[in-house]
């Protein structure tokens, strides 16, 4: 199978904002069409991805240990964590809802941690292994990214509805803050990773191609 030409060898660079193939002969810092900053590869991709990922991982602990909401029914208060919410549905026989919440809140972040770590480690080692599959893995991580926000929205809606003073009252608890932070940071982590690194051959000095420019915009 013949491989199509690669943009870097042709002196081209993809603009991530408008999709234009930009001519890099004069090393422009901005896309001539839309003005977005141009990078041949995302700036400090690996370091940033690691940083966001580790942050998310740290927040993942309180997100699962701290209660996400407090349910008060006729005087009795009870805190519930994400996992206890899943179990509650499971025991009540609603296995389908239990499964949705389990996938969105526990499986998706878990899969993202494992997948992004795998991508980072293999790219660092210049691995040739399963490149196409790793590309697909990255796209999968991007797609599942925001579904973990599900629990935040459920807690918000439930807490805003059940407000019957002494009879029944549901309040959000700090766990949900950490949980939301996990989602935001794993999304930032996935966005910072540059999937083109999977395909890059590194014959000589690495990272000489990086154009340092402002922040995360790409």
């Amino acid at each position, binding site marked *: *199978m013949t*491989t*199509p*030409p*690669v*943009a*870097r060898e*042709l002196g*081209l*660079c*993809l603009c*991530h*904002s*408008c*999709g*234009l*193939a*930009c001519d890099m002969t004069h090393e422009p810092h901005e896309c*001539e*069409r839309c*003005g*977005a900053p141009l990078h041949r590869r995302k700036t400090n991709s690996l370091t940033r991805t690691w940083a966001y990922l580790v942050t998310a991982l740290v927040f993942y602990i309180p997100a699962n240990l701290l209660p996400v909401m407090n349910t008060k029914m006729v005087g009795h208060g009870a805190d519930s964590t994400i996992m206890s919410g899943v179990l509650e*549905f499971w025991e009540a026989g609603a296995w389908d*809802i239990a499964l*949705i*919440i389990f996938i969105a809140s526990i499986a998706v972040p878990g899969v993202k941690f494992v997948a992004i770590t795998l991508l980072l480690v293999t790219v660092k080692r210049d691995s040739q292994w399963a490149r*196409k599959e790793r590309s*697909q893995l*990255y*796209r999968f991580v991007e797609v599942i990214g*925001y*579904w973990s*926000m*599900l*629990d*935040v*929205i*459920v*807690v*918000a*809606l*439930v*807490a*805003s*509805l*059940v*407000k*019957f003073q002494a*009879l*029944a009252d549901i309040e*959000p608890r*700090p766990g*949900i*803050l950490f949980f*939301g932070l996990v989602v935001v940071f794993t999304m930032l982590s996935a966005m910072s990773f540059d*999937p*083109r690194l*999977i*395909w890059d051959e590194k014959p000589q000095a690495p990272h000489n191609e990086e154009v340092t420019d402002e922040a995360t*915009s790409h």
Partner: protein
Amino acid sequence: MATTAPLIICEHCDCVYEKVTLAKHQKTLCTRCGGVLQRYDGLTLQQRLALTLTALMLWIFANFYPVMSISLKGLKNSATLWDSVLALSLGPITFIAMVAAIAMIIAPIFQLFLLIWVLGFALSGRRSPAFKFCMRWLETLRPWSMLEVCLLGAMVAVIKLAGFLDVLPGIGLFALAILSLLMIRIAGRDIRELWDIL
């Protein structure tokens, strides 16, 4: 410079291809990494603008009518999307209320305003004022607009509460359902086509 316009670069592996014209239901994939390069988009400008205006109406319904109402022993209560954001904003966790507000309310409405602005001018064959700015914001907002997650969240909340009190889905929920589907259709990447035709 102009010669690079018909080229397309795979964002996942940097391969370069020439653009092709697609027929209905067709898409092109990168031969090296399997990523989607181009996807057929059947919407004309007029259709897209019409759908965007519809989405704006639905956004108004989804935000000003309760998503659901509940009753327990004669007591009633209902909540809109904004009420649910406020419920999160109490106490030390205000930050997450901001994230939720952006994801459910602010990002979608900004997307809609930008689309209407850009498409309205595009209809007369012109680039709108601040065209570059608007198009770049449409790209930035896309990953943070989470209406489809919001819809699933609302449905899970309905089922969660139905266990111990009476729940009635409101107009807001139905509006939200249609709005989230519309947003997938109108606010996707196809909008980049405007760069080529204007």
